[in-house]
């Protein structure tokens, strides 16, 4: 077995991974850095983010306000010290990206332009037309090409973390091109593999978002945090799950039910105004909008289509000129993938899974409890997003925590001994496992696609927008069954060359672990908060649950859930209220109706 040696390994080449790699290269140019990605880095899912990235730059705005919006939007489950650091560093990171060439949209005088975004009370969202993630990723990728210290392993799939002597010492990875399995040793490993949207059937996430890093960490004993908090984006195209950006609502779009009625006014989100009002109606927080959809389905007021229930997003009143300047991508997406023209027609939308608030438990520097293991980006849970992420916070999150993890890992690696030879034995074991269970195996009755679809149906029904203890218990049993059945897979593809069926089988294994963690955390949290809504426990319970769920994989493979208190600094928990025009802080009781 071959071993390659590096100082720092980035698993994943998206926004967080590339930013971390640059941070390491700048902190210590003598370190050997490797970025391992199962796809070419410019294919990473960062590329599809549309709306924007939040960072305080206007004089009428303040860091405290950004922090408060984030914390209250997260239903007070955010670690406030981390949020304070995040809002402080976000504008600097976005500015650094501008210096690296990111084509941010501008004011006529040449300064950075910002726009409104759902959940933010002031305009602070930087944007690059409506392809912010695309431009950020390509800017980062092209900038990494400058650094000779950054080597890339393009289309290598990490199957396992190597742990010895209580610390992570590298990975085992499969080169897709040739099928060879190789140990790659390192002093520090930073997981930047993104979220796990593909665990669910309707998702904006790309095919590659399978929770790889979460499962990798989970399997070597690192805890996952807040896994029950799964964010639905209220407006995705049915069938494809393609996201219709929040910006469409920020520019003035309306959400209508089958009667053409702006139904959000029935759900404590303010009253309908002709122009969008920050934090009210269609610009309310995402989880509230998704919940309103489910209620509309129950009332029978949604529109039936062959791909499920939908409501309509109406942009017609905005006019062709505005749509072509501010929302060209929205129009292009609707035309190209659903054959609908937003200028003249209503867009069918439904809530789709978009972001995973939960992930590998880290501190403010991306450090996990397992020495040598870091995580940053959507794969990690710091937590700055708490129980519900605000739109335009995840792109700066990649930059801020990618950079922090990179810098911390660089310091750690400089003083760390090299990897031990014992990891080679583990790597050889892994190669044997891949051979025996997948490539050389004969027989087997289960198909990857079947198990995957069953998992997706189970999790949507049990851990979707609304949850209940009984369905969660059933789901836990079903997922355990699926895990057993996945040991009996039959692969058609036994080739060593670019075997994507093998990759799909490995990803299925990761997704089943992640699904199990989600269901376990959801079952244990007997309250409703942010994106986690229990019909059997509809109230928020700060006394018992102002804490993060931590889930560990125990020796027999079953999940074990524990709790970690949230860090509160300056903002004591309040009521999440929307629809007011006064800039409130945490408001005392607003009477709920409807």
């Amino acid at each position, binding site marked *: 077995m071959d071993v390659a*040696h590096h100082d720092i390994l980035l698993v994943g080449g998206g926004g967080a991974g590339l930013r971390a790699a640059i941070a390491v290269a700048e902190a210590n140019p003598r370190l050997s850095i490797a970025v391992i990605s199962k796809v070419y880095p410019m294919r990473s899912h960062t590329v599809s983010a549309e709306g924007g990235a939040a960072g305080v730059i206007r004089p009428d705005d303040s860091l405290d306000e950004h922090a408060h919006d984030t914390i209250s939007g997260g239903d007070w489950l955010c670690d406030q010290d981390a949020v304070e650091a995040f809002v402080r560093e976000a504008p600097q990171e976005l500015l650094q990206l501008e210096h690296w060439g990111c084509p941010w949209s501008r004011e006529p005088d040449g300064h950075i332009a910002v726009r409104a975004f759902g959940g933010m009370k002031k305009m602070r969202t930087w944007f690059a037309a409506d392809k912010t993630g695309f431009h950020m990723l390509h800017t980062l990728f092209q900038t990494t090409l400058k650094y000779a210290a950054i*080597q*890339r392993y393009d289309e290598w799939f990490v199957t396992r973390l190597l742990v010895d002597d209580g610390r992570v010492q590298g990975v085992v990875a499969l080169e897709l091109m040739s099928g060879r399995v190789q140990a790659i040793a390192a002093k520090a490993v930073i997981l930047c593999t993104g979220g796990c949207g593909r665990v669910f059937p309707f998702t904006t996430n790309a095919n590659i978002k399978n929770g790889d890093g979460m499962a990798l960490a989970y399997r070597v004993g690192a805890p996952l945090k807040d896994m029950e908090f799964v964010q639905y984006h209220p407006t995705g195209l049915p069938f494809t799950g393609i996201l219709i950006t929040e910006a469409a609502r920020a520019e003035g779009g309306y959400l209508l039910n089958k009667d053409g009625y702006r139904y959000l006014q029935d759900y404590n989100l303010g009253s309908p105004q002709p122009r969008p009002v920050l934090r009210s109606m269609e610009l309310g927080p995402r989880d509230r909008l998704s919940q309103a959809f489910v209620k509309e389905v129950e009332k029978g007021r949604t529109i039936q289509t062959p791909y499920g229930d939908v409501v309509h997003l109406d942009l017609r009143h905005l006019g062709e000129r505005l749509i072509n300047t501010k929302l060209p991508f929205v129009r292009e997406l609707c035309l190209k993938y659903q054959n609908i023209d937003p200028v003249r027609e209503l867009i069918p939308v439904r809530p789709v899974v978009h972001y995973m608030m939960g992930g590998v438990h880290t501190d403010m520097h991306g450090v996990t409890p397992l020495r040598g293991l870091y995580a940053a980006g959507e794969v990690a849970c710091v937590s700055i997003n708490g129980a519900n992420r605000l739109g335009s916070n995840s792109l700066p999150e990649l930059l801020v925590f990618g950079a922090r993890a990179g810098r911390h890992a660089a310091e750690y690696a400089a003083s760390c001994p090299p990897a031990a030879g014992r990891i080679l034995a583990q790597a050889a074991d892994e190669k044997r496992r891949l051979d025996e269970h997948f490539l050389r195996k004969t027989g087997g009755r289960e198909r990857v696609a079947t198990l995957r679809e069953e998992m997706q149906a189970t999790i949507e029904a049990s851990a979707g927008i609304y949850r209940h203890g009984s369905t969660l218990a059933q789901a836990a049993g079903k997922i355990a069954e699926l895990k057993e059945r996945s040991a009996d897979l039959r692969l058609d593809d036994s080739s060593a060359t670019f075997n994507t069926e093998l990759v799909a089988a490995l990803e299925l294994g990761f997704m089943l672990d992640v699904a199990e963690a989600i269901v376990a955390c959801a079952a244990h949290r007997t309250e409703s908060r942010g994106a986690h809504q229990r019909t059997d426990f509809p109230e928020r319970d700060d006394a018992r649950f102002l804490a993060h769920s931590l889930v560990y994989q125990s020796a027999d493979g079953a999940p074990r859930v524990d709790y970690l208190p949230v860090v509160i600094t300056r903002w004591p928990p309040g009521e999440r209220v929307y629809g007011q025009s006064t800039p409130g802080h945490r408001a005392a009781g607003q009477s709920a109706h409807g």
Partner: protein
Amino acid sequence: MPPETPVYTSYHPRWYRQRVSTYWWLGRWSYLVFILRELSSLAVAWVVLLTLLLVRAVSAGTDSYAEFVQWLKTPVVLALNAVALSFLVFHTITWFNAAPRAMGLRLGGRRVPERLVAVAHYAGWAAASALMAWMVLG
């Protein structure tokens, strides 16, 4: 990129490389048009040569000019010139249609529409032809 320390693999897949045929330009209509466009430069060269011969014939006197005109009237030369003329027109049209893209004109911070640039070219051609016609016939 592969790791810096050379590592030998036990297996490297054989990539399939398709040889590009010498007749690649027949595979697509646009490729054929492209090749013809490039070939039309020969027609341009021919017309330039013809013009030089004309100038020489004129400057050598009335007789040589008359001989030259006789030569121009022979069937071979007529046919050749007919072909050259069609290639020349083809050359001009493809050039005028491609020029706006190649020039990438910007005015006042915005891109000048390609159609406008092409139309300007055709207008110039029409004007020059009208002038020629007036000088020769009028």
